[in-house]
């Protein structure tokens, strides 16, 4: 629509609402068209208003010279990157035939998918049609650890389900998190900063955020839990905790027996399985929630049917635990001075601070404890679901493409599919994982617990994403079929038998719940461009549906996907069909007009369904934890044989550095990094690809900025050359490399884009450690430097 014009003197400007697909955040944007130009701007009223360098460079992705242009079929060996172009029909038929052969021989569960955010809504439907449970995403090295912690302590889900109230907070601590996304959070935080909010960044390297006025605390890698538990020590010792919150809304008063299990009614020979507390008002043991004044400090012997049992409150156990981390002791572990720890604890408690609960987060192998410690600190000061605190997101009730029930799978199209018999291959090994891709690699290599034979890789970059590069190569060798759907040549493309060119986000329309806002909202992205000339790309959803239809036409027909849509020009009709099913569902769920919902989504790009209501969970509504309360002592962890309280353990993800030339190699992102953005010309200049080294280390080793060094993985012996950037942005003893940016090796990368080969891919040096139960990989490593 024309928002402004000046009597015909000034060209008309058109703004079409879209949301960003350059990373997973879906920030709200406008696609701007004027007489002379096209570019992208933030959509300022969107619940998640963008933006950063990534969407600003979107047109460089759109017209990228390295874009995958035609379907490709491998002609060389796997890993060589030699392909011939083939037509869509032949490519789809050949892949469909192979998929059917594999499913017939090994069962449908031997077909697996991996993805990042793109197609994450659609893939469960595709997998359900085929009959495989195996959609295994990026979470092992992304939010797996923090999500397991949210589940354990708050009964919550993936990262947007809980988030700081950025707009209203007064004091924010970020541990290994830099707000590289979503930019809507940064925009909201700028309001809090105007009002004087303080930000503390705890990270061995200074992220871009630390260029602004924040306090940066360069901690030793993998020691955050010791710092956090030490802060808890100070807060408890100085009485800065919220006693009433702990008594009413957490399991802090719950009585725990010496074997670690909670005392229940059945222990006392009473009806029911309620957890027990000691009521100081009546000097009796009572069910959790039933005591007038539940004691936080009770310790004693309780008479049970099998005699006296010694019990302590959870709070007492927490005090015992944090007593290990008196600030001077924590300082030895973390490299953070004791005075700083004490000051942080006092500031955090007295300014009613909030510690961010983690997103992209797997680092050291001990991250599950770290995120539980973070959630417990927020709990200690009672800043849960309060204005300016750590809040639960209002759910948008956005429908899934399919919902798995005990006897059937219900789809968005209204038809039900038979249940999938097998269990997801990674969940057999890591029951609390969101996704543990490493288990899929094991199954591909060993055939255990059952074989994985085909892998379809959709819009993600396993070589830059996952730990243990050599294992990934062995698995890709072992598979019968490797298919890639993507827009640019990530490294795994070279290992693929077939490559299908996908649309980039400006070329497709999409609907989603708004992920990074506390409000419940739906967002929409209009299609604004076709692929540029010479790029014969198609929608990934069409590619997937065509593979299903060509292999199993009857299965595709169940969801109304017929041969008609093999004519790609008709596919938008099928997309609309799905869109209207989603709009139908939402209009019923929220009792709103479907027409006005659709109109606002298309014209404004968003529809806010419900604004955030504070102080609901756990005050008026139960949490999804076993106790319904905040679980300082996690019964989920207990059930899975993990320590119910967080503790600091030396990082199991790598061997500690021992020699003067051994360094931690840590990794992370900023606003100038995402799997696709790093391919842009802008990224050549905006993203550092050399490995960062502190000036004191550089001087000691006799190297200077720009020099080339060799780094060698202490745990895996892999070595590679890299340039170094000598900078105070990383603490001594630590090297930093951006994830995803450097060390690209695909043969399809041509000059002038060979800058992608600079630097290293930090995954090359990883030990391949994956934490038990939780399934979080360790992306940090320890390397030896050779000059």
């Amino acid at each position, binding site marked *: 629509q024309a928002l*402004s*014009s*000046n009597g015909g003197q*000034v*060209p008309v*400007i058109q703004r079409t609402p879209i949301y960003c697909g350059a990373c997973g955040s879906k920030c709200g944007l406008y696609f*701007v068209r*004027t007489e*002379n*130009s*096209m*570019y*992208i*701007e*933030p959509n300022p009223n969107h619940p998640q*208003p*963008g*933006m*950063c*360098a990534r969407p*600003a*460079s*979107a*047109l*460089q992705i759109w*017209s990228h010279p390295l874009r995958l242009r035609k379907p490709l079929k491998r002609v060389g060996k796997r890993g060589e990157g030699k392909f011939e172009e083939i037509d869509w029909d032949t490519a789809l038929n050949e892949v469909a035939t192979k998929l059917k052969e594999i499913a017939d021989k090994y069962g449908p569960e031997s077909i697996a998918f991996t993805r990042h955010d793109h197609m994450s809504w659609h893939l469960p439907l595709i997998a359900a049609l085929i009959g495989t449970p195996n959609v295994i995403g990026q979470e092992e090295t992304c939010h797996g650890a923090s999500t397991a912690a949210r589940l354990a302590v708050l009964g919550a889900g993936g990262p947007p389900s809980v988030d700081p109230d950025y707009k209203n907070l007064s004091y924010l601590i970020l541990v290994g998190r830099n*707000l590289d996304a979503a*930019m*809507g959070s*940064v*925009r909201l935080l*700028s*309001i809090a*900063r*105007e009002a*004087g909010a303080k930000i503390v960044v705890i990270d061995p390297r*200074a992220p*871009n*955020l*630390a*260029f*602004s*006025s924040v306090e940066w605390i360069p901690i030793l890698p993998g020691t955050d839990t010791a710092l956090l538990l030490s802060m808890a020590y100070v807060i408890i010792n100085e009485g800065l905790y919220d006693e009433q919150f702990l008594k009413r809304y957490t399991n802090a008063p719950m009585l725990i027996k010496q074997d670690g299990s909670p005392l229940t009614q059945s222990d006392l020979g009473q009806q029911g399985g309620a957890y027990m507390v000691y009521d100081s008002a009546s000097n009796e043991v009572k069910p959790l929630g039933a005591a007038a004044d539940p004691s936080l400090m009770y310790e004693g012997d309780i008479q049970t049917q099998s005699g006296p049992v010694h019990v302590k409150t959870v709070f007492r156990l927490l005090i015992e635990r944090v007593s290990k981390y008196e600030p001077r002791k924590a300082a030895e572990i973390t490299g953070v001075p004791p005075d700083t720890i004490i000051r942080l604890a006092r500031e955090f408690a007295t300014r009613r601070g909030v510690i961010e609960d983690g997103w992209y987060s797997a680092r050291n192998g001990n991250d599950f404890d770290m995120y539980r410690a973070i959630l417990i600190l927020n709990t200690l000061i009672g800043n849960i679901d309060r204005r300016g605190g750590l809040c639960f997101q209002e759910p948008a009730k956005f429908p899934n493409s399919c919902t798995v029930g005990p006897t059937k799978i219900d789809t968005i199209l209204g038809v039900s599919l038979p249940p999938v018999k097998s269990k997801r291959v990674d969940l057999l090994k890591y029951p609390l994982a969101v996704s543990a891709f490493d288990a899929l690699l094991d199954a591909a290599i060993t055939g255990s617990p059952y074989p994985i034979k085909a892998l379809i890789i959709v819009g993600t970059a396993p070589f830059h994403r996952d730990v243990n590069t050599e294992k990934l190569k062995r698995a890709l060798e072992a598979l019968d079929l490797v298919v890639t759907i993507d827009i640019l040549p990530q490294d795994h493309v070279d290992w693929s038998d077939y490559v299908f060119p996908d649309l980039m986000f400006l070329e497709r329309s999409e609907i989603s719940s708004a992920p990074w806002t506390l409000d419940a909202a739906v967002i929409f992205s209009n299609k604004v461009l076709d692929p540029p000339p010479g790029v014969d790309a198609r929608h990934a959803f069409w590619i997937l549906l065509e593979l299903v239809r060509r292999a199993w036409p009857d299965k595709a027909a169940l969801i109304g996907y017929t041969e008609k849509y093999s004519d790609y020009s008709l596919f938008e009709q099928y997309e609309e069909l799905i869109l209207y099913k989603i709009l139908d569902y939402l209009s019923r769920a929220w009792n709103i007009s479907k027409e006005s919902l659709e109109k606002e989504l298309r014209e404004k790009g968003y529809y806010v369904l419900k604004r955030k209501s504070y102080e609901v969970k756990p005050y008026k509504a139960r949490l999804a934890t076993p106790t319904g309360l905040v679980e300082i002592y996690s019964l989920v962890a207990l059930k899975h044989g993990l320590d119910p309280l967080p503790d600091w353990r030396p990082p199991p993800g790598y061997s500690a550095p021992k020699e003067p030339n051994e360094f931690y190699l840590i990794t992370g992102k*900023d*606003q*100038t990094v995402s799997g696709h953005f790093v391919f842009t*010309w*802008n990224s050549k*200049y*905006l993203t550092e690809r050399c490995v960062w080294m502190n*000036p004191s280390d550089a001087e000691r080793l006799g190297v200077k900025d720009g020099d080339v060094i060799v780094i060698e993985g202490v745990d895996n012996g892999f070595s590679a050359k890299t340039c170094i950037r*000598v*900078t*105070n*942005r990383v603490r001594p003893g630590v090297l930093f490399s951006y994830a995803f940016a450097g060390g690209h090796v695909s043969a399809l990368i041509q000059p002038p884009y060979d800058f992608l080969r600079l630097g290293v891919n930090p995954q090359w040096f990883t030990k391949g450690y994956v934490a038990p139960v939780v399934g979080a990989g360790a992306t940090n490593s320890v390397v030896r430097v050779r000059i």
Partner: protein
Amino acid sequence: MTRLAFLWDQSRCISCGACIAACNAGNYKSSTSSNISWNWIRTNIKRIELDRSIRPMVLLVQCQQCENPPCVTVCPTGASYKDSEGLVKINYRLCIGCRYCMVACPYQARWFDEEVWAPVKCMGEECLERISRGERPICVAVCPANARDFGDIDDPNSSISRRLAESRYVKLLENVGTDPKYYVVVGP
């Protein structure tokens, strides 16, 4: 009088690159040709990282819209000029590509665009059109950290004037007599 000026808040800037890339997209059509003058993106904003200082800092530098612009003084043809609202502009029809202005600018805020054969600078064509429509320059509109502002410093009610009134700020190379109108805010 109207005197248009830029504000960049160093204490808020997170160096996300949005302004740099958006200037390229809006003013230079997302061009991937080289900016040889700066060895940089075709954009009017430079990023200087001062990461050997004790506290890592970033400095974003662009045309300072000087009250006494040396680039205008040295221009032999009058192509560079200061307009009635205080913006330093180029009349491309008069530019002969001699690049004296590039040499004269103490901020090195101009770069040579081989495609138009002229030294270019902030503001670009699209940004000039935007302000003629009453909109903010692209770099200001896109900033997620609210680290940028633009407007009339002679109007005490403009948002830039109000921000300057409650901020500590510096100007770059104030000693060289250019009287720049690019205010670098360093804190409240």
